[in-house]
């Protein structure tokens, strides 16, 4: 299987993200059992898999959640050891996680959190911090991407937001923080068809040669709107099969049990 991305990497540039043999446990229970994954610049990868296969764990470990214990393997991000960085350093280096369950922070306005985050990222990149006026102008522009009501910006972070509003808010944050690698953890879950379309349009609008994305999803339906370059199936804490977008369709037809029934040697070849 040859590696053909839609956008060829610039000469001499390694992959953006290289995960090798990553193992991780939570509460003493091993969830990831040797994950291998390579994401090049500008690529969109989908990670699919049954419940409990370790999809969300992978997303959280890449973002640096401390309650997960990395027990083996390595992760290179832009050629650097990602696992050595704190969660905020990863964020400032352009890694973004859209949460499956965005948390509520009472009394803290959405705008305030985003401005604090953006300016932390800008400081890190040696850019001038935005003042209130510049920031508001930026928000007015970005809010259109997810067709979000501006009133939500002034409300407390995720407090009283509907499920769809929370997910749109995550995409808005992604648009503002302008990440190099965006990991979207089940961004499609809990969305009705209209909200799914809006969120997908937002994701597509943010696709580009300078940004890679990893979509973690249980269902194929998001991939009808956001067409991935690569699809991987995670099962039992390992990537057991990889392919192009057709793999997702095949999965949809045959179900995850098809994967589990596959021969072990076939699984081993699933490595990308």
């Amino acid at each position, binding site marked *: 299987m040859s590696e053909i991305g839609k956008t060829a990497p610039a000469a001499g540039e390694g992959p953006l993200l290289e995960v090798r043999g990553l193992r991780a446990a939570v509460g003493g229970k091993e969830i990831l059992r040797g994950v291998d994954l390579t994401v090049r610049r500008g690529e969109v990868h989908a990670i699919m898999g049954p419940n409990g296969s370790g999809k969300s764990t992978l997303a959280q470990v890449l973002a640096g*959640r*401390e309650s997960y214990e990395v027990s083996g393997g390595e992760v290179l991000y832009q050629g650097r050891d990602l696992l050595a960085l704190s969660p*905020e350093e990863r964020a400032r280096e352009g890694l973004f996680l859209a949460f499956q369950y965005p*948390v509520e922070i009472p*009394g803290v306005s959405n705008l*305030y959190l*985003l401005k604090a985050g*953006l300016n*932390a990222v800008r400081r890190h990149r040696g850019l001038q911090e935005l003042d209130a006026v510049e920031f508001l102008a930026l928000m007015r522009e970005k809010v259109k991407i997810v067709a979000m009501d501006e009133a939500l910006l002034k409300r407390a972070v995720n407090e009283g937001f509907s499920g769809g509003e929370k997910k749109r808010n995550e995409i808005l944050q992604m648009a503002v*923080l302008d990440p190099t690698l965006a990991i979207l953890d089940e961004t499609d879950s809990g969305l009705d068809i209209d909200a799914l379309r809006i969120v997908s349009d937002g994701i597509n609008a943010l696709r580009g040669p300078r940004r890679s994305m990893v979509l973690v999803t249980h269902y194929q339906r998001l991939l009808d709107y956001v067409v991935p370059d690569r699809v991987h199936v995670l099962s039992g804490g390992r990537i057991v099969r990889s392919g192009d977008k057709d793999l997702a369709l095949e999965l949809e037809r045959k179900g995850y049990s098809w994967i589990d029934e596959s021969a072990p040697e076939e699984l081993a070849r699933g490595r990308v």
Partner: protein
Amino acid sequence: MNEPIQDLANREYRYGFVTPIESETIPPGLSEEVIRLISAKKQEPEFLLEWRLKAYRHWLTMVEPSWARVEYPPIDYQSISYYSAPRQKRGPKSLDEVDPELLRTYEKLGIPLGEQAALAGIAVDAVFDSVSVATTFKEKLGSMGIIFCSFSEAVREHPELVRRWLGSVVPATDNFFAALNSAVFTDGSFAYIPKGVRCPMELSTYFRINAASTGQFERTLIVADEGATVSYLEGCTAPMRDENQLHAAVVELVALDDATIKYSTVQNWYPGDREGKGGIYNFVTKRGHCKGARSKISWTQVETGSAITWKYPSCILQGDDSIGEFYSVALTNNFQQADTGTKMIHIGRNTRSTIVSKGISAGHGQNTYRGMVKILKGAAGARNYSQCDSLLLGDRCGAHTFPYVEVGNATAQLEHEASTSRIGEDQLFYCRQRGLSTEDAVNLIVNGFCKEVFRELPMEFAVEAQKLLSVSLEGSVG
């Protein structure tokens, strides 16, 4: 759980310096002689000396209260000096006559006494140990009939006002610490806003303890006559010392018909070190009397300092349709203890009160909300809303809530909400994933928690309070 929330590290107390100034401090000890000496030093009229002595004799019969949820070794009241004043020319006429060392002290504390005062537009009374050293904007306020001066000056210049209102809200025999204060108080601030006058600027008193082994016993009295409005700010700091120092103040507020008093405090007395050594015992009695119809008294406090805080700013809602408010943020870190809250006594008809208390505990801090809502028989249509929220950082601190309710009128309506939460690891991670450092994330979450109180503070104070909170929490997460 809460893995990022770990041990407390040290935090910096920015105001812990000592001003090298020659002071006149009387030897430690308390007796009628000492009280006569204080009264004589202040050249007080006879009535005041009698009032002090009466308070002292009553105090001797009283027992120190022990019901608060705070612990401290017995205080030796004979080891405290009850009067300490920087030596300076008697009654400086203008700032030019104030000892430059004192001016520098306030400059270091960020308190505008000189030219900055004009820019800041805040009138300040600066109390240094036992005496007021400067009051700004007196002339400008005077032209509107507003009296704003040190308590000593009020006694000299406006004895009839002092005599009429002193002790009218907090009687000399009210409680152990109020009685002690009444016996030995040395200075404080006095404000009188005449009928129908809206005070054009914030009035403020800045309290500074400097000398060692002294207590600070100041008394503040604010009277808003019919239809008057005033906003008053109070700030306080002290040097870092290993011994505990006692601060037993009394604040009395009187609001006549249609008058409004807003009283804001940012309390930042030295809290002691991270092992709990030293710090101020802040045992304070604050009470407002909504004497007139439609009057309103609003207390807002941000308590971040002191080793121990024992303080219940209260409102007696006597006038019909009068309003009492209490907004509080109390933070205890390291080994600080706070037992604070309010009393809302509803006497008049259709009186309303609001209580919003936010307690934050970190380290080994113990934070207690203690509040009473009392509806008397005649208070038809009285209403109260109480909300007490506690936030815990780490697992060695404590939050406690003791709400007392007494209802003597069946038409009263009371609401009480309470919550206790921890800063969630998920909230911290969310913020950090957006690029914020752990410390910034904690500050953000804590400030969000306190928002309902901060928005009651005057603008500059709100900014100050936020900064103070972040300094006080420094190092409270790993």
